């Protein structure tokens, strides 16, 4: 199972990546119950920069183009994006 991770704005800049596939095979708990919080925890293991950037209190998570809380469940092929508060208009 894999999902697509996207990063925007200051998060993209801080982490030096804008989009990549994240392989979730063999993760615990059973992959069918993975939520956004679990993905954040997994990505945070990549190092201090990732841990700090993803755990800022105002980070927004969008799952398949919709803003969600961290308890949203993630499935095969989903697109999960992390970014700072939006400043359009």
């Amino acid at each position, binding site marked *: 199972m894999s999902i697509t991770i*996207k990063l925007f704005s*200051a998060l993209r800049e801080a982490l030096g990546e804008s989009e990549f596939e994240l392989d979730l095979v063999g993760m615990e708990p059973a992959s069918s119950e993975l939520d956004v919080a679990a993905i954040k925890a997994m990505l945070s293991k990549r190092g201090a920069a990732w841990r700090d950037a993803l755990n800022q209190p105002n980070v927004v998570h969008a799952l398949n183009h919709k803003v969600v809380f961290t308890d949203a469940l993630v499935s095969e092929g989903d697109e999960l*994006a992390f970014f700072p508060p939006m*400043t*359009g*208009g």
Partner: protein
Amino acid sequence: MSVSLQAEAIDVATEYARLVGDAPGAAVATFTGYVRDHTDQQAVTELALEHYPEMAQKVLDELGHSAAERFQLSQWRIVHRYGALGVSETIVWVGAVADHRGEAISACEFMMDSLKTDAPFWKREQRLTGEQWVASRDSDTARRARWQSVEVE
């Protein structure tokens, strides 16, 4: 009844003419946002607008439909730019057509307040002192929240 995400400048006259068409409603309201030449007393020389294309399209589509239902619009249009923008250039244009003036005007305000906090765009300003991401404003969040309290009624 449509959204445009575009790099090109917004042609306000053309957008207006298309919105109204041959059979206008009684009331047409529009709003245009331009790039400021300053932020917090600091001169701004250019603006870069990053966006999340698929999500921006979806959010703005939903916003237009929501405004149409809420304010009984016969037509609406949202145009938002991305990319490199010079000072005084257009950033965003919204237009609404309704039977009554209050609905057309409120729809524009609702669309602008909502897209400021809900549409995935991020402004990066080129200032004389260097580049900087624009921080979100509490006042924008507060303006957005006004519409949510109405939704519950």
